[in-house]
């Protein structure tokens, strides 16, 4: 594919809220009719990727379902910062039960709606990466396997941020967390660990799986809307930077999300019935070093001098993703 740089100020770009686009191409957020599912007054940190991702994802799902939707939320930042009793930031029917059961609660809601003949009301279950890949994995896999009519959204910030930045099964190699500290001969998280939930979801051969980042919010909206056009189990995995846990500037949340994709470290793709159907090409390929350097969780890779070997191993992960998903030429291997 020929190299074609995108300039975001150009007329007709997909920048959020662009009023030069035709009505049907505009973002959900640019519409005055948006639901504000997650409205102001919550206590998320400045630059929180999860708050941003959840608002876009749920507003898009609300539009796709004509506001006929119920949400089950796992324990975690998103739950804590939105519902300190007696306040709530949710404008949608919302339930929080436990850390590990949001998929099962979603299943229960879907079963209740089926028994009442109200399949017009759709169900979204959501969790952070801990509530998805670790403690919530059993109920999530069960929900996938039974093909329950639930869209599960994982907001992945790559560690247990709510409890103070501990390592999860989604923490990337070399990343410093409170339980994989930057000490010893192999600082940060070990290589060769962690699980890839989008691929595991695909192995269940559910109707729809997609990944997205908060850098490309229109893409996230599109994927949520598409997910709502399917019935059965669906999974969307959204990369959401956490300034606190990543040690990054709040103003860098969008930039880092984009860099995660542009390095190849976070492949953005869609899959139906277990097969990849589309990938988002890397526009300007970046070396992983540029993505790692602004994050304090990787600072041991650059001080006192660059740890070229470890950076090289991370680059190899990105290169493998690029080749596996065909991120440069749209041709997965």
């Amino acid at each position, binding site marked *: 594919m020929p190299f074609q740089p995108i300039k975001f100020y150009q007329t007709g770009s997909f920048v959020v809220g662009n009023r030069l686009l035709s009505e049907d191409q505009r973002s959900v957020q640019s519409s005055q009719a948006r639901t504000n599912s997650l409205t102001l007054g919550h206590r998320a940190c400045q630059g929180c990727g999860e708050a941003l991702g959840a608002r876009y994802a749920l507003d898009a799902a609300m539009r796709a379902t004509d506001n006929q*939707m119920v949400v089950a939320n796992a324990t975690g930042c998103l739950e804590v910062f939105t*519902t300190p009793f007696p*306040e709530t930031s949710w404008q949608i029917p919302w*339930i929080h039960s436990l850390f590990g059961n949001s998929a*099962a609660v979603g299943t229960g809601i879907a079963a209740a709606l089926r028994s009442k003949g109200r399949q017009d009301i759709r169900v979204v279950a959501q969790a952070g990466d801990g509530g998805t890949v670790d403690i919530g994995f059993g109920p999530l896999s069960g929900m996938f396997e039974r093909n329950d009519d639930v869209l599960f959204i994982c907001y992945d910030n790559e560690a247990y941020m709510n409890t103070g930045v501990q390592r999860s099964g989604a923490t990337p190699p070399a990343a410093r967390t409170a339980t994989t500290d930057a000490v010893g001969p192999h600082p940060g998280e070990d290589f060769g660990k962690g699980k890839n939930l989008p691929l595991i979801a695909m192995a269940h051969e559910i109707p729809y799986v997609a990944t997205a980042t908060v850098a490309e919010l229109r893409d996230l909206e599109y994927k949520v809307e598409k997910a709502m056009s399917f019935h059965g189990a669906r999974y969307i995995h959204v990369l959401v930077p956490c300034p606190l846990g990543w040690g990054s500037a709040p103003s860098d949340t969008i930039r880092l999300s984009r860099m995660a994709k542009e390095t190849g470290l976070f492949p953005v793709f869609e899959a139906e019935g277990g097969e990849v159907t589309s990938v988002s090409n890397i526009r300007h390929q970046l070396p992983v070093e540029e993505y790692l350097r602004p994050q304090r969780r990787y600072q041991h890779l650059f001080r006192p001098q660059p740890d070229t070997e470890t950076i090289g191993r991370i680059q190899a992960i990105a290169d493998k993703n690029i080749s596996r998903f065909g991120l440069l030429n749209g041709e997965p291997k």
Partner: protein
Amino acid sequence: MLEQIEGSQAVARAVRLSRPEVICAYPISPQTHIVEALSVAVKSGALEHCEFVNVESEFAALSVAIGASAAGARSYTATASQGLLYMIEAVYNAAGLGLPIVMTLANRAIGAPINIWNDHSDAMAVRDAGWIQLFAETNQDAADLHIYAFRLAEQLSVPVMVNMDGFILTHATERVDLPTQEQVDAFLPPYAPRTYLDPADPVSIGAMVGPEAFTEVRYLASLRQQEALSAIEQIDEEFSEVFGRRPCGFFSSYRMEDAEIVAVAMGSAVGTLKDAVDDMREQGVRVGALGLRTFRPFPADAIRSALSGSRRVLVFERAHSPGFGGQLSADIAATMRSAEPTVHSVVSGLGGRPVTRLSVASAIQAASKGELGLETFLDLDESLLKHEVTELGTARRSSATGGTLAQIIESSGPQGAR
């Protein structure tokens, strides 16, 4: 209609007659026959408008029931032993959220060593979770109590656990009088939840509550258990009108009129107690039996008056707390307390509220003046309570619970040493 039927089949029929809308199950002996029968009922179409979900664990079973109940569906599951322990986090959660789920607990021992046979260790492990716990003495009880449990749970917004002894009841074939659908429909109206997940009227369920209000939440839960005691008496009346027999009561009494010795048990052992009482009565021993059906809430006043004339109470415990003793005898001993010193429960420091020197001193002062109740919640925020109870009373779809709670608060006088 009288039938010779296995306990599990009788319970499955009773649950079916109660028209549940979501049933979820994970296999564990000895409850499996119940959910097997229910799965056939759903799949064959005998039980309409009901979803049967085969889940991947007990934790998911109760979590699915939580979601279904919160979405306004009458929800049921069954478990035992290890299964109950695997779902215990959700057991507490269902009670905290006030979801009227009904669950059969086919009582079974907890390993190690692994053992599939009956005792009450499982029920005791969740004694403090906030569920209403009923114990069936016979399979007639077990069938009746399930229909009863849905009614009780939904009237109070509290989950109900129906305990029936594993194998001894679940697998025993006995004569059971199963009611007709018309009778059950007359007794058990469709579930009309106080609040549920409704896009037309969005609510947030399961908010985070800090030290400023957690004690009040627990206090209201405690009041609701007190309310259950009066509800049980009232629902008993209605049940006997419709079905011609009393299912629950707080306990059954047998030859208690002049008993010096009373044997107490829960579950199927009560029948054996009665036989032994007959034997001993023939030998001239003044003995009676009390079979406790309502374990939580604990009907302390009724038990106190039933046992007050006796000299010895033998509690036949089907569970044991290592390092302490029998849980049921401890409850009964606490109920019968009369001698010095008086022991007061001062419930304090729940959910992060500080136990301050000033509050402790005020409780001590109240005790020294003889003004401290046997159970007191320390530092209750009366205005918050009043607000919450008023909310319950006025909210859309509300039952009379808010008003009843207000009455209980009124009659119990000011709580807490301030």
